[in-house]
Structure formats: structure tokens, C-alpha cells
């Protein structure tokens, strides 16, 4: 029986990239665990610890060795192993030497099928501490490092320069050299608060000791929650609400080992600048957290997270306030400079900004978006003039100082500047909303002009990029076209807009002239793929999607109604039988050689009561669904068709489709064809 002990490995480095920390830690832990299991070494929980200055992995209850390995090999049959005089044959000697022994050392394996030369031995398992250095080295070489670097003489490379390696199995140092450094039991804590080396007595003491003596919280999640709690405590005291951007919180956690939150203030005069600008300046540049009052108004205060329990906190606060003042002064300067030139005058400057080499400038894009917006304005219920004005101005903020400084404010600044220029509220709303939805859970545009431009912009992008062969391939999607397509589909479906994608793409392609080859067909298929992925996340079964896709409805809103209809149909008691019947009909029709099937059923050739009944039923349904089809009321159609279950079942039970007489047979096939067409108008339910 093997014994277990805890294990810790820590790589001490210079400050690591904060936004890569968790990925590095997770990968390090995962790779070590995977190698341990492929070496058949069992272990308990695996915990990564990451701070700016360390990547560590702690493993509980790690077995001290691999299991023994029993080795068994069967050699040549005894009859082929020895010559008549009893001397071993070449085959026997070859087998023995392949096992590293002589023929005399081999045994025999007797079975009822015969006897063979046999080799049997036990290979002791490797000791964990012998294997670990290689496992750790492999894991480090597999880290998802964006850019490796060299330092000093340049012999080694890693994310950042490495200064120490701690590796303990239980209480003992694991002997090994990692990234050029001999492993030891020494770690280092916070640079200022714990400058001396810290000896870790045993693996299980690592995190506790580092926290207590090293003044560092090694656990990322714990550190993050500790920061969040400090922010919320200060906010509570101020009767305020802190804006805790999750990405910012992660970055800050990645930058800090010893978090101390402090409250600072800024000059209330800056509040004249739109709050988004001030918040961006605080977050992007200074990595600080903004505070809102109960009415969601920005307060002239901010929370900074320092990496020190300073012996003079007011100095740290004063310093941060000084920088924040300069940052906000910059933002105010940009805002006031931007106000000097109306958006409408900036549009011309878009001629200097290349959108895409082959597709021209942003200005060219604007011209196309305008045409598209005009083309669809009525259909999306937008005022044509509003939509065209908003289209004209929607990218003009790209040539403002503020957006140059804070790209994430595109749209937002357009909104503020448009209002300042006395554009209508509708135009301003459309400008800010046309970028929505920006991500999967984001809200959709609300204003109708915003909807029109959101659609126009995305259609133009998709058609342009596909038209010059920049469709996403595999993992690669540098222009985020999948996201753009999904955004487009979400808008069309959620807003129930009856726009036909194929027509829309073709119209958009025409606007590009000969710059592109019309990609409409491919793009439609791409959109179907996106729809499929979307429906899967919404728990719509793949076969339901497939049944609707059979018709390739190129209006997403129409597609969606059919999906809903099929989902409802599936819940009807008749669904299973009708799906099976459709499948049967499909198979029969495929096998039948009759190619020219029409709906012209000859009532005179209907001999059995069951086929007469079905015929009557079909006639009635055909008439019944014509108005429903006009209303695109697919749910009602499928509900109505559900009553065909009994006549169809009866038909198959009593009627022989492949009758001897050709005219009877053809007539029956025609009837089945007619039945299938009824369903196919909505979806191919045979696929359910």
C-alpha cells in the first residue's frame, strides 16, 4: 500500500500579467493533475494559488509512488521454441532478448490451446518525488503564455523572470531543478511587509504561512472577495453604491497581493463631464472604483486598492488624488474640445479612417448603412428621416478625442454630442443603441431607428467580410462575425421583424458594387448555423431545429414561429404517430419510381373506405390551412393537421399502397405526396 502526503510547488516570479493570472494558474494545476493521472498516481484536491509574484499548485493526499506494474509477454509456441535436440530456436532467443533475459529464465504458459514461452515480471512503480520535477517542467512548458520573455543572459524564458522555486512533498524538499533554479522550501512574502525569506515547514502549511507571515493572500478567489468586501464596506459607510466591474475586479486582484482599499475624492466640478467618461478614466487608467449615490448619480469620490498597509495612508490617498485630478482634467479637456466641433462636421473626417483595406473607409460604410437603413426603415417601423440622420452620424464619434482615448465610449459619446448639437432625442438614442447588443446577454436596441441602424450596420459588415472571403474559419473569428450574426438574428427574432435575410444580403451586396462577390447564399447558411447554436443554448432540440431548417425559411422571425409551432406540436398526443407516418410516407415516396407526382388524386380510383376517408380529410385540411398559411400561423396549422392522425393510421392499417394495379398504386402515392406536402409547408415533422 502506498502512502500519501500533501504536495506544493511554487514558482516565484516578477510581476505577472494580471489578466492572464487565473488562466496560467488553472492551466498549471490542470496539466500537473493530468500528468499525475496518466502516471497512475492518485491524489486528492488540486488547488492553484496565484498572485502577481507566484504561480503555485497545492495537491492534497498525493500518493508517494506509481502502482507496481505487472509485465506479461507471450512468446513463440513451445513447438517453435526448441529444436529437436532441445536447443532454443532463433525465435526463442529473440523473444528472450526482447524481454532482457535468457531463454532459461523464461517460463511456459500452458493452456488448453497449447503451450508458449512466457515472460513474467513485476516492474516497481516510480517514486512520485522522482517523477514530479519532470511533470512540473512539462506543465510549465504547456502554460498558455501569450508572450514568453528572456532576461539576464537570456538562457531561460518564461512569462516573467523567475526568482525562486519551492517544492515540498510533506515536509521534504523535492529535489529538482525547475527553470534553472534548484527547488527549496523557501518562499517570499510581500516585498515591503515581509522582506525576509520564509521557510515553509510542510506542504499543508504553505497558504496559511504565506498569509500569516508573508502578508499575502495566495488564493485568487479569496483575495478577490476580500477586495470586494472592502469596497462594499466603504461604499456602505458612504451610503453609496460602488460600480464593481467584474473585469476590473479581476485585474485589480491580479495586480495586488495585499489589498487595502482606501477612499479618495476628486473635484466636484468634474461632474459636469458625462459620467461615463469619468468612470472610464477611473477604471481604465487608474484601476479605481467609482461610486454612485442612491439616485445613480456619480459621487466625487473613488475607491483605490493599494498593495500596502501604508504607515501613512493619507500620503497614498493624496498621491492618487493628484493623478486622478490630472486624468479627469484630461477627460474634461477632451470633452470640451470635442464639443467645439459638431458631429455632423466630423462625418467628412471618416474618409481618413480605413474600415477594411478592401472595403474602404468608415465614410464608405456610412454611405452604405444609410442606404440600408432607408431600405428597411418602414419595415422596422422607423421614421425614414430619423433613421437616415442617425445613420449619417452614428460613427462620427470615432473621430473625437474622447473615443480615441476610451474606445469603449463609442456610441455613448455620439449620444451626448448629438444632444449637445441639438439633434433629436430619437437620433441620439439611435446612435448609442446601434451597437447593441454588444455581447450575448446585452440588451437589444429599443428605439426603432436604433433597430434599423443596428441591423444595417451588421448586415453591411457581414456581407462585406464574407464578400471578400473573410468568413470565420474554425476557432478563428478576428472580426467577431459570429457575434455580429447572432446579434442580427436576435434583433430580428425578438422584435418579430419580417425581414428576409437573403433579400437583405443581396441588397447590401449591391451597395458594395464590384468590391465583393455576392456572398448571400453562404451567409444565409452561416446564419442558420448561428441560429442552430442559439437554439441549442435555449434548449430547443436539434431535431426540432432540423425539421424547420428543411424549408430554409430565410426570415428569422418566420423561422422562429415555425420552431415554436413544432415545439407545441411535439406536445400533442398525435405527434408521435404523425411523425412516424411522415417518416413512413417519406420512405415510401423515395422508394417509389413514380417521379411525376401531382396532387391530382382521382376520387374514382379510391376503393377502400379508409382511403376515401383520408382523401376527404385531406381536401378539408387543404382548404382549412390556406388562410392560416397567409397569417403564417404555423401553430394553428400543425394543431389542425394533428387531427389527421386517426385517418392516417387507419389508412396504413387497411390500405396496401403498393397495389398490383398501377393506377391504384399511383393514386395512393399521390395521396401520400399530398399529405406530406401539407406538413412540409410548416416543417419536416418526419425528422422529429
Amino acid at each position, binding site marked *: 500500500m502506498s502512502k500519501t502526503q500533501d504536495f506544493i510547488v511554487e514558482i516565484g516570479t516578477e*510581476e505577472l500579467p494580471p489578466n492572464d493570472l487565473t488562466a496560467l494558474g488553472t492551466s498549471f494545476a490542470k496539466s500537473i493533475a493530468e500528468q499525475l493521472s496518466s502516471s497512475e498516481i492518485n491524489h486528492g484536491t488540486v488547488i492553484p494559488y496565484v498572485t502577481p509574484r507566484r504561480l503555485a499548485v497545492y495537491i492534497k493526499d498525493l500518493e508517494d509512488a506509481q502502482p507496481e506494474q505487472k509485465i506479461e509477454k507471450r512468446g513463440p509456441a513451445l513447438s517453435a521454441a526448441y529444436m529437436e535436440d532441445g536447443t532454443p530456436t532463433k525465435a526463442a532467443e529473440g523473444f528472450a532478448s526482447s524481454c532482457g533475459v535468457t531463454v532459461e529464465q523464461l517460463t511456459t504458459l500452458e493452456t488448453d490451446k497449447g503451450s508458449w514461452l512466457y515472460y513474467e515480471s513485476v516492474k516497481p512503480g516510480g517514486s512520485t518525488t522522482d517523477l514530479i520535477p519532470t511533470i512540473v517542467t512539462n506543465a510549465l512548458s504547456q502554460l498558455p503564455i501569450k508572450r514568453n520573455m528572456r532576461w539576464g543572459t537570456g538562457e531561460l524564458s518564461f512569462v516573467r523572470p523567475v526568482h525562486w522555486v519551492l517544492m515540498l512533498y510533506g515536509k521534504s524538499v523535492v529535489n529538482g531543478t525547475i527553470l534553472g533554479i534548484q527547488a527549496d522550501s523557501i518562499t517570499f512574502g510581500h516585498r515591503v511587509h515581509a522582506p525576509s525569506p520564509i521557510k515553509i515547514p510542510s506542504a499543508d502549511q504553505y497558504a496559511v504561512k504565506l498569509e500569516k507571515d508573508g502578508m499575502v493572500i495566495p488564493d485568487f478567489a479569496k483575495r478577490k472577495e476580500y477586495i470586494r468586501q472592502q469596497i462594499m464596506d466603504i461604499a456602505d459607510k458612504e451610503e453609496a453604491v460602488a460600480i464593481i466591474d467584474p473585469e476590473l475586479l479581476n485585474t485589480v486582484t491580479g495586480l495586488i497581493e495585499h489589498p487595502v482599499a482606501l477612499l479618495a475624492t476628486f473635484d466636484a466640478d468634474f461632474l459636469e463631464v458625462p459620467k461615463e467618461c469619468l468612470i472610464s478614466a477611473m477604471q481604465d487608467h487608474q484601476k479605481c472604483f467609482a461610486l454612485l449615490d442612491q439616485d445613480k448619480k456619480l459621487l466625487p469620490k473613488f475607491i483605490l486598492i493599494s498593495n*500596502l498597509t501604508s504607515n501613512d495612508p493619507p500620503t497614498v490617498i493624496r498621491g492618487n488624488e493628484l493623478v486622478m485630478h490630472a486624468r479627469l482634467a484630461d477627460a474634461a479637456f477632451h470633452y470640451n474640445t470635442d464639443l467645439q466641433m459638431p458631429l455632423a462636421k466630423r462625418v467628412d473626417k471618416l474618409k481618413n479612417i480605413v474600415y477594411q483595406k478592401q472595403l474602404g473607409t468608415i465614410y464608405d460604410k456610412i454611405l452604405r448603412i444609410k442606404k440600408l437603413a432607408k431600405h428597411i426603415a418602414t419595415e422596422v417601423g422607423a421614421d425614414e428621416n430619423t433613421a437616415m440622420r442617425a445613420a449619417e452620424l452614428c460613427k462620427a464619434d470615432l473621430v473625437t478625442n474622447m473615443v480615441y482615448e476610451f474606445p469603449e465610449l463609442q456610441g455613448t459619446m455620439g449620444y451626448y454630442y448629438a444632444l449637445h448639437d441639438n439633434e433629436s432625442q430619437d437620433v441620439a438614442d439611435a446612435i448609442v443603441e446601434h451597437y447593441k447588443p454588444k455581447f450575448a446577454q446585452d440588451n437589444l436596441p429599443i428605439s426603432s431607428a436604433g433597430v434599423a441602424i443596428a441591423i444595417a450596420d451588421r448586415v453591411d459588415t457581414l456581407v462585406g467580410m464574407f464578400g471578400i472571403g473573410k468568413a470565420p474559419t474554425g476557432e478563428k473569428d478576428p472580426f467577431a462575425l459570429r457575434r455580429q450574426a447572432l446579434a442580427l438574428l436576435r434583433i430580428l427574432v425578438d422584435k418579430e421583424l419580417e425581414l428576409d435575410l437573403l433579400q437583405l444580403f443581396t441588397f447590401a451586396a449591391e451597395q458594395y458594387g464590384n468590391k465583393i462577390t455576392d456572398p448571400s447564399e453562404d451567409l444565409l447558411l452561416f446564419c442558420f448555423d448561428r441560429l442552430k447554436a442559439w437554439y441549442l443554448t435555449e434548449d430547443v432540440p436539434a431535431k426540432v431545429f432540423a425539421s424547420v431548417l428543411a424549408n430554409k425559411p430565410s426570415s428569422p422571425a418566420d423561422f422562429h414561429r415555425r420552431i415554436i409551432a413544432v415545439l407545441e406540436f411535439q406536445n400533442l398526443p398525435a405527434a408521435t404517430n404523425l411523425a412516424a407516418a411522415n417518416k413512413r410516407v417519406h420512405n415510401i415516396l423515395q422508394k417509389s419510381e413514380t417521379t411525376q407526382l401531382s396532387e391530382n388524386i382521382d376520387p374514382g380510383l379510391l376503393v377502400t373506405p379508409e382511403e376515401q376517408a383520408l382523401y376527404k380529410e385531406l381536401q378539408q385540411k387543404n382548404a382549412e390551412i390556406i388562410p392560416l398559411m397567409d397569417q403564417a400561423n404555423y401553430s394553428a396549422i400543425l394543431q389542425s393537421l394533428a387531427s389527421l392522425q386517426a385517418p392516417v393510421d387507419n389508412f396504413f392499417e387497411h390500405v396496401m399502397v403498393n397495389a398490383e394495379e398501377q393506377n391504384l398504386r399511383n393514386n395512393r402515392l399521390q395521396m401520400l405526396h399530398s399529405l406530406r406536402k401539407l406538413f412540409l409547408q410548416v416543417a419536416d415533422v418526419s425528422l422529429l
Partner: protein
Amino acid sequence: MSNDTTFQGLITALERFWQQQGCLILQPYDMEVGAGTFHPDTFLRAIGPEPWRAAHVQASRRPTDGRYGEHPNRNQHFFQYQVVLKPSPENFQELYLESLVAIGIDPAKHDIRFVEDNWEGPTLGAWGLGWEVWLDGMEITQFTYFQQVGGLECKPTMGELAYGIERIALYLQGKHRTQDLIWAIGPYGEITYGDVYQQSEVEMSKYNFEIADTDMLFKHFDQWESESNKMIAAQLPLPAYEMVLKASHIFNLLDARHAISVTERQQYILRVRNLAKQVAELYYASREALGFPLLSRVPA
């Protein structure tokens, strides 16, 4: 620890500290450069296997940063304190922190952080990894391990510190505006940074943004480019490099005049980079031909 918080006192303290670390105390380069990195004693010395330790003030010119002397901390002409150590020492970060102590910044009092900031010099075909160093939220130093210079791999690696000395002085002196910094206290009382540079900031901003003759500058760019190419052909990397610096500064001026469109901009950067790459290769070859003389000074 230094008690002299004047601008020149700060420079003296840095100079003294890095001298004690075995750096050559060099002088600023006598041409317009955008940063200390352009000084040949950084850019060219980063190339090849020879060791190098140097420190000096470098005046930096960035025409687009001009604000007519009105902005609290943006000027078209400012100073960096440049330190290069090659190979970068094991205790590089510790040395840097000690240098802060030497200029009166106590790490137990101030929040000092190393915030990832990877440096890229597109005109020099150079990049490095490192940080901007924050002092209570203010960026005071760019800390870089050069990885590539002029398209050549840096092995051994040169470590570079570029102290933003105006910002540090602002902090030490508790001032809000660069122009209010005390440069020195002498027989005429306090002489401020503004006393020395304000007029120049106003006039140079006007020249850079409004007056500089762009036709002439375009012509000069082409001429210096062609001259640099001639020097490359003549196997003279140092003169060729000076002409790269001239072309690079002219490009910056044209940029300030908004004379270069976005699409052309990339082309101009590539033209300078192309020269810088050739200079780097030529410089390497010339040092190699000399047998990398400084290599023999490394104790075995």
C-alpha cells in the same frame, strides 16, 4: 536618502545612485529623439553579446504632446532619466526600488506597484516586456526587458529604466503643474521649470502644430531616408542611425501637423523601421568584425 527635492537635486541623486551601481554616467544625445530608447547607447548597445551599463538624462521631444505650456503635465519637450543594464541583473527590481529610496521615496509609506505594460517601438522594430511603475497611482517609470531591437533578438537581455523625472519631481515637491517645479534654488531665489522652458513650450507648440512647413518636412524625410540608405551602403551604421533619428523626428512633426493620413502613417512607420532594421544588422556586423571588444572585459 536625498533631501534635495529640486529638479536638479533629483537628477543628481539618480546619477549618484546609478554611478554606485557601476553605470557609466553618459550625456544626453545631441539630436532630437522621442525617448531615451533612441539614444544610440541604448538602441545600438542592446544589440549583440557585449555587456553595457549606462545612465544619463535624455531630453525627449514629442511634438504631438505639446499643449502650449498650458497643460499641468504634458509638454512637447521633457526629460527622462535613462538607465540601461545589460545583461539585466538578477536583482534589477530591487535595485530600482533602492533607487527610489535614494531619491526620497519610502516604500513603506508609498504604494509602489509594477503594472504590466509591454513596450513596443514600431519605428525601431523593437519590443520588450515589463511594467509601468506606479507610485500611489502615478506612472513614474517605464521598466522594460528588451526582447527585440531592430528586428534582432536581444540575448543577453538589456534591462531599461526610463524615469519620468518631471512626474517624480511633481510628487516629491507636491506641485500640480510641471511649470511650477523648482528647478534649483540659487542666488536669484527659486528658479522654476517654467522659468527655463515655458517660453519654449509656447513657441514650439505653435511651430509644431501651426507653422512647420510640411512640404519642406516631406522633402526632408525623403532626403534623410535616402542619405541613411547611402550610409548603409557605405557600411557606416552610426551615421546611418543618426539619419534614422532625423527621419523619425520629421515624421513626428508631420504627425503633429496632421499631414499624414491614417493609411499613409503606417507606410511612414515602415520606412523608418526598415532603415532601423538595416542599421541594427550593420551595427551587429561591425561589432562582430571588431571581435565584440567589450566582451573581453567580462571577468571569466
